[in-house]
């Protein structure tokens, strides 16, 4: 999308600690999770987090394809993160970039610890993530949606995986960075965790943080994950109620 070059006179965060979109430093973007949105998938979820719009769909457990990847003692678990060409300002080629390959891998690592992979030997579970609209923090939102989709598919899990970034913007530590904060800010620190198990399963960082800031930022991200976790459970509950109603009618 061609844009008028913006004068960055607008501050990312003002003296009162209010961010460009009106949020407080430790405030999440408005977030909505829907469950069971892809008819053909075994499980699926949709998340809107600020201007992010992301779909996740689960296929499996199923036979492994190609077959030589079959593992005799566990499930093959794979996530694929992919961005639609129109999800960003400048059209992205549909072929997966190196960034998308890396994110697919770290997302797989972030979610796999939550799955009882050893209960489904010789099978595969694939999670397909499509970012339809991107505005910063898509890997976290993708993890959040993917974990809910896996629950919707009935895959046995130790806990849900909830994800949220913290970071540093205009000298302040903030939660859940949007795109302009990610790009213009000082640091971005995405975190994923299983809140009930106090298990951090994704941790990345870009930018610059002093050691004490780093510690605070990790803790701030954890509070974000916990809020996201509550939204995940609500969404699953709503789905359960809806299904129950549908069955009873």
């Amino acid at each position, binding site marked *: *999308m*061609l844009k008028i070059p913006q004068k960055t006179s607008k501050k990312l965060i003002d003296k009162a600690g209010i961010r460009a979109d009106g949020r407080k430093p430790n405030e999440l973007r408005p977030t909505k999770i829907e469950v069971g949105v*892809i*008819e*053909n998938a075994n499980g699926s979820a949709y998340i809107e987090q600020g201007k992010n719009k992301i*779909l996740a769909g689960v296929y499996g457990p199923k036979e492994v394809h190609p077959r030589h990847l079959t593992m005799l003692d566990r499930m093959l678990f794979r996530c*694929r993160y992919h961005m639609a060409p129109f999800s960003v300002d400048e059209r992205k080629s549909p072929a997966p970039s190196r960034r998308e390959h890396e994110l697919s891998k770290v997302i797989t690592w972030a979610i796999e610890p939550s799955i009882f992979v050893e209960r489904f030997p010789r099978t595969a579970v694939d999670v397909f993530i499509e970012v339809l609209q991107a505005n910063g923090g898509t890997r976290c939102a993708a993890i959040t949606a993917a974990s809910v989709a896996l629950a919707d598919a009935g895959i046995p899990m130790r806990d849900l995986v909830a994800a949220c970034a913290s970071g540093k913007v205009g000298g302040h530590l903030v939660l859940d960075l949007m795109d302009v904060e990610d790009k213009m800010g000082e640091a971005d620190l995405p975190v994923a965790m299983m809140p009930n198990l106090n298990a951090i399963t994704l941790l990345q960082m870009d930018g610059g943080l002093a050691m004490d800031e780093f510690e605070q930022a990790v803790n701030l991200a954890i509070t974000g994950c916990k809020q996201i976790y509550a939204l995940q459970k609500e969404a699953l509950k709503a789905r359960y109620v809806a299904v129950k109603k549908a069955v009873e009618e």
Partner: protein
Amino acid sequence: MPSIIIPIMQQKQVAQAISKGKRLDGRGLTDYREVQLETGIVSSAEGSARVHLGKTDVLVGIKIERGQPFSDTPDKGVLTVNAELSPLASSMFEPGPPGVQAIELARVVDRGIRESEAIAVEKLCVIPGKKVFVVFIDIYVLNYDGNLIDASAMAALAALLNTKMFKYELKDGEIEIKPGYTKLPVKDHPIAVTIAKINDILIVDPALDEEQVMDARLTMTLGKDGRVCAIQKGGSGHFTAQQILEAAKIVQEKSGEIRKLLVKD
């Protein structure tokens, strides 16, 4: 591509019902499934639309970028249609570069838009032979339950009608973006209607279970004045000349119905 095996019993049921003039989901032979349309849902795109055709779910996003014209049309903008069959949409789809199904889908939608001259590409030329705008139409299939062509063509048209173009001026031979938007110049409203043949009977808008037993399909794209702009026959079967003319009549009627759903004026 791992295929979905529709049980033989169900295949027979689909065919038998159609022989009796019925369809398993209760539709008449020339009925479309329910069409749901949302537009403007992707703010990172210049235009977007999502169409549910029964359980088939297609999202189209439009991007407009600066580019160069083709050497044989130096004074026209460029139109590019691409289709992704997301593995999200069906266990029949796999990650990877577009296969022949995606290529055919993109090309059939492309021809409908191009041949009907739906977009006034001459208005997308900035400096002849040097600078034009490129319109990217990206078809994204999110759930697959048959008849991707019609659903994608609908979503593409609705997205084009929904597309905003930035204003610009030329300064020293460079495009400079100005505040405000105009509409993308859309001149025609092509509608694709797909007919499938099952047991020598013609039906409209085949669902996936019907596609899997059909002998052949025929897609005709009509412009708003009723002229035929593009045709595609698919599948390893045949039509008689009479069936083709019969199909053309059905398409004439159905294309008007669909156009009313998409184009409000």
